[in-house]
Structures are given as structure tokens and as C-alpha cells.
């Protein structure tokens, strides 16, 4: 993120406009006591009634002028604030979106949301309305003091003593509040996180009838939120009344001391009236000082958090001078690829070659690193050893957009957006894809039939995470989405697990027929990988067996055993054995 000033600078002319509006309206405000003074001194005491009409018309004019300029000021600053907020949010969103997957492993959605929404809102308030109010308070104070000095320099000593005391109070308060706001903002994030997790896991919560526990858990955070807010209230209560006290006492002091001066003949009654009115006018800026420093403190706390999160370095970055492939053929090569994370070995010495148009099957035990392979291919993480080549180029030398645009992945965990079916299928290519392509992809994925059975067919809204559909239906839409992307490389990570056997067979046949694209199919079922040109079996983070279906069956290794289990032969044999006994 750029410094805050950068975002504000863009609107300098509007700031200026608002500032002018403010200066004029404050200036008009300053003139009112002058007029009152003249009414008292000249009209009432000296009896110059001729002057009355023009003086009171002056008061009316000041009111009208202030109305216009106040509006200009307020509207301008509201406008600036929300615009600055928009710009900041836009940049922040752009930055966050480019963060690599490891960033999102560290920061959960609730936290990211708080930064992009609540924190930006607070900054917005300060760059607009609140900020200008602070400036206005300062300008107002200075101008009032100026007029006071002109009226009676000696009497001005009283506000000059009171003001620094009030300032001191405000500074102390700001310090205290700053700390509390940091904590409040953290707690807001945890409230968000707890609630978000609960909502996301609502099925699990209900299945275990654990609502009371969830309510309690939320209650704890809710209570802490309350306590922190009370802490804030105490800090405010310790300071704000003192500020009010100082302001009121100052006014009284002015009248008493001024009274003595009038009695001594050093000042007219009208002057005292005007001076008192000025003193009255300097109280409000002081009183809102507390409130302002409160808001400003919380905004700065938010801004620091925004900066901190936006400055985190993503592990995966675009190369400075990416190699551009004019046409991607889809040849994949792993050369001695290894991957470690947090000191754990996840993949070790993986070698493979996938020629354009060929299909590679990958099987392996839970946790053997199959999904990591896919993550590495998309550069969600970078290899820690060896290299991965696409069409002979190290994928770290390609731009992320070219790399990812040439691969389509169906992930194990289905995520669909709250949008229509067709928009979901179009993800990543919203502008180019025609309805025909969408339908074609859906047919290939075996999804067309059930989609046309939905209330609004392809225009049916599917909720967040694609709920409202069964697991198999969601999976088929996500397969359609990948097919529609039309990339030279298609990767299916256990993508047909929720389909019944008939549908799975159909989808697999369709995929087999899809020419001109290399495929990597990860699966637990032999049926998913048996037609592949080569099948790798991973075990203990390495390739344990490799070959075609027939070759692997002949080896009578793990693949063979899996085949036995899945085709039901193993249990049949067991039954037979038991029957014999």
C-alpha cells in the first residue's frame, strides 16, 4: 500500500474546495459576535437605531452564507472520504487477491475481511468528515484566538492557559485509546472468524447437536468484546468531562476577569459580550477534541493493520521478465522434484513426463502428496528441489497468468460462487464464452441433464459453496467449469469421487474423447485412471510403481491389491474362505 497521503493527494482540489467552504463559513461565524457587539454598543447603548436594520440583515446574511458553505464543506468531505475509501479498498483488494496461497493459509477469511471492510471504513471516516472536523476545530480555535487578541490581549491569557491543558488531556486520551482500539479491532476479527467458521461448518455443528457449545464459544468472544468496549468507555470517561470542565471554567474566568476590567474602565460592555461569545465559540472545538482523537486513534490503528497485511511478501511472485510461450502445447516434465514444508518432506524426487495429448494417472495413499503435485503445477507453492517444465520452460520463468491460463484444475474440494450456473462455468473467461460452449462443457461433464431440470436451467442461482445441489452435482459443475476453460492441460484431482458409478463412467468416457489436451487424473478408484497412458502410484512421498494398467497388474504390487479390493474380488475371496471354514 502506498502512504495515506498518496490517496488523499488525488483529491487535492476537492480538499481545497472543502477547505475554502470551511474557512468562509468559519469566517462568517467569526463575524457574528462583531455584529452582536455593534448592536449592543452602538444600537442599544448609543441609540443609533438607523444601523439596526443593516446589522440584523447582516446576521441573516451570515446564516444564509453559512448554510451554503457548510453544505459545500460537508458534502465535499463526505465525497472525498468515501472516494478515498474506495481507492484504498480497491488497491488493498488487488494486493490481497495477488497474495499467494501461503498467505491465505496464515490469515483466515474473517481476518482478511475485517481489513478490507471495517478497517478501510474507519480510515475513510478520518480522511473525510472526521479529518476535516479536526482541521476545522483547529482553524476555528486559531481564528477565535486572533479575534480575542484584537479585542483584548490581556483577557486572552485565560483561554491561552486553558487550551494547552485541554490539549494535554486529549493527547493522553488518544494514547490510551490507541491501544484499546488495536485490541478491539483484533477482537472484531475473532468475532468474525468464530461466526464465520460456525456458519461454514453449520452441518457439522448440527450433526453433533453442539449448538450450545458454539453459542458459548461465541459468547466468550462477545463478552471480551464488551469488556474492551468498556475499557474504551472508561478512558473516555476519565478525560472528556475534564475537558468540558476546563472549557466551562474558562468561559466563567473570562467573564469574571473581564468584569473587573469593565469596572476598572478598561473595556466596554459590548466588548465583554463579544469576548464571551468568542470564548463560548472556542469551547466546542475543545469538547469535540476528545471525540475526534478517539476516531483518529482508531483509524490509525486500522491503517497500521492495513499496511501490515498489505506488505506481507507473497512466497510466489511473478518473474521480473517472464518467458512468453506463443502457444502452449501442454507438455509437462517433472525433474527430480522435491517439496518440503515446515520441515516436513511432502514430495521427494518425482520424475515424470507427460506428452501433449497424453493422460497421466496418479494414485496413492491418503497423504502421499498427490494434491501437492497439483498445487506445485499451478505454482500455489514452489518446488524446493528440482524443477517443473511446461513445454520445456521452467514454470517459475513463466508469468503466473500464462501458466494458470494454460491449466484447468478440478479441485478435490468443490467451491462454487454464488452466481448462476452459467456464470460459474464461465469463471475466468466470462467475456468470451458463448452459451453453446457452456452447454457443451456441461454435457461433457454429465451435468447438462440435471441443469436443465433446475428451475431456471443455466440461469439458476446456486448459493455460496454451491449449496442447494448435491455433492455430485456440484462436482459436475466444477468439472464443466474446467472443461470450458479449454486449456491444453486438464487436471482432475479426485474429481469424480462424489459421482455414482454410471455418471462417473459417462464423464470419464467424455473426457477420454476430449482430444488435443493433456490430462492428469488423480484418483482413488482404478476406474478413474485405468485408461491413462501412464499411471504413477505414490507411496511415502515418492513414486513407488509406474506403468500402464496392464503392466501394473502384472507387477502384483500395491496397484494390483487396490484393484482386487475395488473390483470386489478380495471380499469375495474372503467370503469364500470364511465359507470353507
Amino acid at each position, binding site marked *: 500500500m502506498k502512504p495515506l497521503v498518496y490517496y488523499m493527494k488525488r483529491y487535492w482540489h476537492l480538499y481545497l474546495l472543502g477547505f475554502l467552504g470551511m474557512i468562509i463559513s468559519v469566517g462568517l461565524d467569526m463575524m457574528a459576535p462583531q455584529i452582536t457587539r455593534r448592536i449592543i454598543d452602538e444600537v*442599544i447603548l448609543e441609540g443609533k437605531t438607523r444601523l439596526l436594520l443593516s446589522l440584523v440583515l447582516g446576521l441573516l446574511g451570515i446564516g444564509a452564507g453559512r448554510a451554503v458553505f457548510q453544505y459545500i464543506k460537508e458534502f465535499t468531505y463526505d465525497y472525498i472520504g*468515501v472516494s478515498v475509501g474506495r481507492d484504498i479498498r480497491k488497491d488493498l483488494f488487488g494486493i490481497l487477491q495477488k497474495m499467494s496461497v501461503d498467505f491465505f493459509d496464515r490469515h483466515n477469511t474473517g481476518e482478511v475481511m475485517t481489513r478490507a*471492510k471495517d478497517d478501510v471504513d474507519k480510515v475513510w471516516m478520518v480522511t473525510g468528515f472526521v479529518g476535516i472536523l479536526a482541521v476545522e476545530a483547529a482553524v476555528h480555535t486559531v481564528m477565535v484566538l486572533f479575534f480575542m487578541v484584537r479585542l483584548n490581549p490581556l483577557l486572552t491569557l485565560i483561554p491561552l492557559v486553558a487550551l494547552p491543558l485541554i490539549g494535554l488531556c486529549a493527547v493522553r486520551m488518544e494514547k490510551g485509546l490507541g491501544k484499546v482500539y488495536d485490541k478491539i479491532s483484533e477482537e472484531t476479527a475473532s468475532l468474525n472468524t468464530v461466526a464465520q*467458521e460456525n456458519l461454514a461448518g453449520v452441518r457439522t455443528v448440527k450433526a453433533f447437536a453442539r449448538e450450545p457449545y458454539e453459542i458459548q464459544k461465541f459468547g466468550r468472544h462477545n463478552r471480551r468484546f464488551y469488556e474492551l468496549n468498556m475499557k474504551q468507555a472508561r478512558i473516555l470517561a476519565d478525560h472528556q468531562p475534564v475537558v468540558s470542565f476546563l472549557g*466551562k471554567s474558562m468561559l466563567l474566568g473570562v467573564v469574571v476577569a473581564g*468584569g473587573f476590567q469593565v469596572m476598572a474602565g478598561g473595556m466596554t460592555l459590548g466588548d465583554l459580550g463579544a469576548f464571551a461569545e468568542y470564548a463560548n465559540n472556542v469551547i466546542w472545538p475543545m469538547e469535540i477534541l476528545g471525540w475526534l482523537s478517539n476516531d483518529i486513534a482508531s483509524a490509525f490503528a486500522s491503517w497500521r493493520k492495513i499496511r501490515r497485511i498489505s506488505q506481507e511478501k507473497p512466497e510466489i511472485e511473478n518473474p521480473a521478465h517472464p518467458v512468453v510461450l506463443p502457444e502452449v502445447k501442454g507438455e509437462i516434465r517433472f525433474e527430480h522434484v522435491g517439496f518440503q514444508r515446515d520441515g516436513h518432506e511432502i514430495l521427494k524426487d518425482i520424475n515424470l513426463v507427460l506428452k501433449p495429448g497424453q493422460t497421466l494417472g496418479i494414485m496413492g495413499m491418503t497423504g502421499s502428496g498427490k494434491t501437492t503435485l497439483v498445487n506445485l503445477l499451478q505454482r500455489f507453492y514452489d518446488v524446493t528441489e528440482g524443477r517443473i517444465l511446461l513445454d520445456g520452460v521452467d514454470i517459475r520463468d513463466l508469468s503466473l497468468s500464462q501458466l494458470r491460463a494454460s491449466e484447468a484444475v478440478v479441485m478435490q474440494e468443490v467451491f462454487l460462487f454464488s452466481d448462476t450456473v452459467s456464470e460459474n462455468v464461465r469463471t475466468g473467461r466470462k467475456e468470451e464464452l458463448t452459451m453453446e460452449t457452456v452447454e457443451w462443457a456441461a454435457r461433457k461433464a454429465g451435468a447438462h441433464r440435471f441443469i436443465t431440470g433446475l428451475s431456471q436451467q443455466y440461469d439458476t442461482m446456486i448459493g455460496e459453496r454451491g449449496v442447494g445441489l448435491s455433492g455430485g452435482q456440484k462436482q459436475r459443475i466444477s468439472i464443466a467449469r474446467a472443461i470450458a476453460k479449454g486449456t491444453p492441460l486438464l487436471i482432475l484431482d479426485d474429481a469424480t469421487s462424489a459421482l455414482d458409478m454410471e455418471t462417473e463412467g459417462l464423464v470419464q468416457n467424455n473426457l477420454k474423447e476430449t482430444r488435443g489436451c493433456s490430462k492428469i487424473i488423480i484418483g482413488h478408484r482404478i476406474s478413474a485412471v485405468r485408461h491413462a497412458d501412464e499411471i504413477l502410484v505414490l507411496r511415502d512421498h515418492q513414486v513407488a510403481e509406474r506403468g500402464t494398467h496392464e503392466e501394473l497388474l502384472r507387477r502384483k504390487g500395491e496397484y494390483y491389491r487396490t484393484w482386487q*479390493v475395488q473390483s470386489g474380488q478380495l471380499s469375495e475371496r474372503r467370503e469364500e474362505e470364511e465359507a470353507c471354514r
Partner: protein
Amino acid sequence: MQVNTSRQDELQREVPKSETLARLYKYMLRYKRTLAAVLALVLVTLGVTLVTPLLIEQAVDVYVAEGNRRGLLLLGAAGLILFLIFMAGTRGRMLLMEGVTNRVLETIRQELYTHIQTLSFHFFDSRPTGKILARVVGDVNSLKEMYSDSVTKLLPDLLTVTGVAVIMLAKNWKLALAALLTLPFMAAGMFLIQTKAHRLWQIYRKKNSNLNAFIHENFSGIRIVQSFAAEKEAMKEFNECNEAFRTSFIDAVRVADLFSALVEITWGAGGFLLYFIGIRVIGADQVGVGTFMAFSTYLGMFWSPVRNLASFYNKIITNLSAAERIFDIMDTPAQITDQPGAYPLPRVRGEVSFSNVSFAYTDEPERLVLKDVSFTAKPGETIALVGPTGAGKTTIVNLISRFYDVTSGEIRIDGHELRQVTLESLRRQMGVMTQDTFLFTGTIRENICYGRPDATKEEMIAAAKAVNAHDFIMELEQGYDTVVSERGGQLSIGQRQLLAFARTMVSDPRILILDEATSSIDSHTELLVQEGIQKLLENRTSFVIAHRLSTIRGADRIFYIDRQGILEAGSHQELMEKKGAYYRLYQSSRQEA
């Protein structure tokens, strides 16, 4: 089906504003005593504020005019004491009032959250999580100022306005009337502005909620966004949401900012009338300089609360829509609840019987998913449900755990009708493994013991061993104390499923439901899991939705679900001999393998 997206504004019932307000303040009335104390303190501080101009008038008109130095000094001292009282009073008022406000917010938030927990899946399915979140955190927070301001600002402001008017009228009613002549005009102007502003603020709140929802969803699905290189699209959509949010705010303030302009102009007119009528009509000698000065102060004191009242009204308007949205959720009836007179289900043997069960989702009442389904599962029996996707397998198991209520017919467990027993006692005896494995942020231990936090360490380890999760857990650096997150972080999907298995095992359910739960575990692991489960299945009735032949074959009975009901039922042997739908399914999948 009405599904809400981030691009769509939410539909909202229109509720009379007074009703919402009354409801909001009901929460505060629980703290009558504290509020009474706050009010007393408000009166004290208000008294001081009102008396201050009188002090000044007295000082100028009497003591200064008479040259009474002693009186002036005494008055100064008295004023100082009053201000000290004012300071103490304000402090007490702030603390008490903030206490009430924060407590009320805590209560509302907790009630809202508690209510959300009782809502059915339909509620969660029909709107993005982000929108629900916005209510629980943001919307509730936005009520804060309204609550505290209504007691510490609104009431004193109203009292100030009345008090000032009374004092002015008492001192010089003609002058007072002159100064206050503009009041009706201002009231009319305020009314006009607020009517228009209300609608605009409502739009603003909706755009705000859309923006929230969009950000939430985008970051929940960030992997898909990046993997599909859809950042530009997301950015475009975000910009639309962001821009709509900004524009709606600007539209609203364009009108709302007229408030202060209105106040300024009436203030100016008030000053005009005060001096003009005071001097020209009433006569300056009748009034006195001190009174003019006091009136001019009072005039200031009069308009600033009016201005506050206006902005308070503004605030109420803005926040009322937040309140409306909160109450909207609170008023959403929980469809599945304990019926009056529901009794706890005693520990069951596990006989599950469906008699003439039909089911349709509430939003599509004419489309029956199940029609006249009847069967009885004997205690300890394992029933496999097979059939085409979307045929209603999941619906059947959802009905057993009463995630939905039957449309007609009834379901009994050990003879107890499901709707007659309490939900908690029912689900406690039910182990449901859904398609999505969800783990909570916390240690593995906490996750495994989620359904039964009082489980001993031995029980936990036994369960983990039974489903073969123990070994991989022990390989983790911190074993059972390893922290996992929402997305499971370092765990593979299969490992997370094993944890979910262990979690179900620990809760020792009488009836077990496995909904495609093993589909992501490799066959090698599944074989081990199957062995473990077989042991635990003993004496448990279980319903298994599975796709793998090995799982299906082991079942006591197999139901082939299609065309709104059970098309075929029987053991593997029986169904194979029948050569029907199941036979065809079995053959085709065997060929595949």
C-alpha cells in the same frame, strides 16, 4: 428458490419504524435502575449547563453594572463548584450509560447468534455467509451510538430545548416568541429531508452488505479465483460493488447534509428576529443588555440541540435499517425445533422405521423428492443406499437426523416419533458424516472430541486407532495437540476425513449415517477404515451412502433409490438374482474397475 448473491440487494420485509424502535428500546428497559441513575445525572449536568448563561447574565447585568467586586468573585467561586459537580456527573453518566449500551449490544448479538443456530439448512443455503456475518458483527455494532445517544444526547437535548424555551419565555415571552418564530419552518424542512434520506440510507446499507458478501466469497474461494486466472473478473465485479457502495453513500449524504444547512439558515434568521423585534418592536430599554446577551447564548444553546436532534434522527434512520435486518433474522422461524412437550429420547436400540414418508422442499412443494416410502431397519442392521445422483439418498438420511421434517407420513426410532423427541437427544445418538469434512480451528484433540468433550484420552485414542487415524496423528509434530485450521492446512483431505471419522466414533452414536464419506480415502486406507468401522458398527444401525462395491456388498440390505422411493431392496445376493437396476449398476461398475 430465492437465492441471494452479492450482486443482488436483499429483499426485506417492510416493518413500521415505530415497531422496530419499540423493540430496540425494550432491550434497554431491562436496565431501568441504571437508566434512572443516568437520567438523574443527566438532569444534574443539564441543570449546570442551563444555569451557566444565567450566571453570566447575573455577572454582567448586576455585579459589573453595580461595580460589586465581591459578588463577582463569589459568583465565580460558585460557578467553579457547579462545574466540578458537572464534571463528576458527566463521568458517572458516561460510565453507566456505556455499560448499559455495551451490555445491550452484547445481548442482541448473543440472541441473534443463538437464534441463527436454530435455523434450518435452508436458511444457510439461501444466502452467502458474508451477509449473515455482516449482521452479527457490523449491524449490531452500528446500533451502539443510537442507544447511547438516545439517553445521553437525545433526552438531554429534548430537555435543553424545552428548558431553554421555558427560561426564555419566562424571562421575556415576547422576545422569546420572536426568536423562536422559525421553529415550525425548520421542523417542516427536517421532515422533508428525512423522508428522502431514509430511503437513500437504506439503499446504502444494502450496498454495504453486498460489498461484504462479495469480499467474503472472493477470499473464501481464492484458490479457484487464482487457479482460473479469474482475478481480472473478480476485480471487475469488486469494482462494481465498491463503486455502487460509494455512489449510494454519496447519494445519501447529498440529501442528508442539507440538515446542517437548514439549521444554519434558521439560526441566522433567529438572530435576525431576536434583535430586530427586540429593539424595534419591544424596545431596547425594556430588555436590557444582559438579557440580550443571555438570549443570544440561549439561542445558541437552543439550535445546537436541535441540530443534534436532526443528526440523531439521521442516525436512527440509518441504523434502523440495520436493526430491521437484525430482527428480520430473529423473526425467521426455526423450522426444525423441539415441539411443545417434546421429551428426551431414551437410549435407543436403533430400530428406524419409515411409514408412508413423503417429502418435498418447502420452496418446491409440488415436486416430491420422496413419495410414500416405508421400511424398517432392524437394530444393528447396515443398510446401503445406492442409486443415481440426486435420486434422494441424501434426503432419506437427512430426514432420519431430522435436518428436515417429513411432508407427510412419519419416522420412528424405537417407536418414538421423531417430532415428539428433543432434537438434541436425537442427534446425540446419531452419528452423521456428511460429504464435506469440516474441521474447526483448534487442536486435533478438540476436533475429535467435538461431539463429546468429556471423552477420556483413552477413548479418544481408541477411536482414532479404530479408524486408523492414530498413526498419522502421531507422525505430526505435536500429535493430538497439533492445531488444524478451517481449511485443514497441513492435512490432506483424506486425513481430514479420517479425523472426522474419529470424531464420529468418539461420540458413540446408536445410529450411524455415512454419506459418501469415504469417497476421498484411498482404497488402501479405506480397507483399514472399513475394518475399524465393522467393529464399531456392531450393535449400531447404520445407513451408508457409498459408491464403492466393497462397501455396498458388505451391507445387510441394499436399497436402490430412484423415482421417489425404494425401487429395489434386498441383500446383494437377492438383488443380483433379480437382475434389475442394481444388477445393471453392479455390472457396469465392475467392468469399469
